[in-house]
């Protein structure tokens, strides 16, 4: 084919009409790309993208789980802390109650003891008084008889008589005492 003929032939080409050989080449080229890119490679990248999505979602899931676990532990700790606080408050309350009770008991005991001491003192005093009175009575008797004997010059040696005289004297004294009072 000469150059001129080629040029002429080319000029007759209508751009809207395809060359048969170009249809064949285009078809084969597209088929090749479809087989390599579409059939072999696209599934690979799809698989990788899916795995990546899964990995990211898995990571997020893991993080969420960890957070939930941390929340649970925190809650647990808070509960325990609350419990401990309440326990402490309860113990404190109990101790206070016990303290008050002990104090009350002690006071009770002290008062009882005090009462007992006072009563013992009273009794002692009564006894001492009685004893003193008794002593006084015999002393007074003796002194009086001594005094009377000296006055009358007569010794009332006779015991029985002496006591009788003294008793009579004392009764008179008491009787006059009550009458005076």
């Amino acid at each position, binding site marked *: 084919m000469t150059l001129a003929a080629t040029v002429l032939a080319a000029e007759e080409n209508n751009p809207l009409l395809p060359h048969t050989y170009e249809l064949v080449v285009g078809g084969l080229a597209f088929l090749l*790309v479809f087989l390599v890119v579409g059939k072999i490679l696209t599934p690979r990248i799809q698989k990788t993208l899916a795995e990546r999505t899964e990995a990211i979602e898995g990571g997020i899931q893991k993080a969420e789980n960890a957070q939930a676990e941390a929340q649970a532990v925190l809650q647990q700790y808070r509960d325990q802390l609350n419990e401990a606080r309440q326990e402490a408050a309860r113990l404190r309350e109990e101790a206070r109650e016990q303290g008050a009770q002990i104090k009350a008991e002690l006071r009770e005991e002290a008062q009882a003891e005090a009462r007992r001491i006072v009563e013992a003192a009273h009794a002692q005093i009564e006894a001492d008084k009685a004893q003193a009175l008794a002593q006084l009575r015999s002393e007074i008797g003796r002194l009086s008889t001594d005094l009377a004997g000296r006055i009358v010059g007569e010794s009332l040696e006779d015991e029985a008589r002496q006591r009788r005289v003294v008793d009579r004297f004392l009764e008179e004294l008491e009787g006059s005492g009550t009458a005076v009072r």
Partner: protein
Amino acid sequence: MTTLTLLAADGEFQAPGPEIFNFPPLYSGAPVWLTKPVLLAVIGALIICVLAWTAFAKPKLVPRGIQNIGEYGYTFVRDQCARPFLGKDAERWMPLLLSLFLLILLWNFFGVIPVLQLPVNSHIAYPIIFAVTIYVIKVYLGIKHQGGIGYFKNMMFPPGLPKGVYVLMAPLELISNLVLAPFTHAVRLFANMFAGHLILAFFASVGFHFLFEQLTPLGAPLGVVGFLMTTLMTGFEIFIQFLQAFLFTMLAAMYIGGSLHADH
């Protein structure tokens, strides 16, 4: 190219026409099919395979280097094309959609890559291959999932319209779905690449002609404009090339999704 050079030799500026899309065999004695666009198509397919292989052959859970770029492409197609129209079926159709998007995108980019400078999809055979593939899948899935009669019934008689409208609606929908859709699907991609390449060639040849072939005081500013416009339009073309690859893939997902579920 040959024609342009021949005519330009006269000294008159000759705007490049559709003949710039005609390529003779690569070397004299080569088979008639071994032309530049064929070679680019094969190289493009191989590059996509190699790039995708380095990105996805052994994908890591924590992506590095080219895998990042590959994943960016993958998630772009998945989130922008597949999921809006296919929903939970998106993953299943990603092999087709990703292959489609990557190959179309690189073939389009060849239009602005120095030396190569030809968008493969400016030859209508390639868009036709893509569109026909999608068309076959669309009709097959439609009949499979909606039944032979159901598919056409859903297509031609979408519920909820007054009865009289169907007289007009039914044939229009039939033609629109079975004839116009695949046609525009292919032609939209082809025409964008074709026109884009033509525009780039035009401004480039303006710059080349008035600055190098025939430098005159009057012509030089025009040449500068041509040069600037070439630069500007190259940037614009990159955008169009990406947009058309995206649009083609999105429509493919839409057609497949429409066949899987009668969503009227």
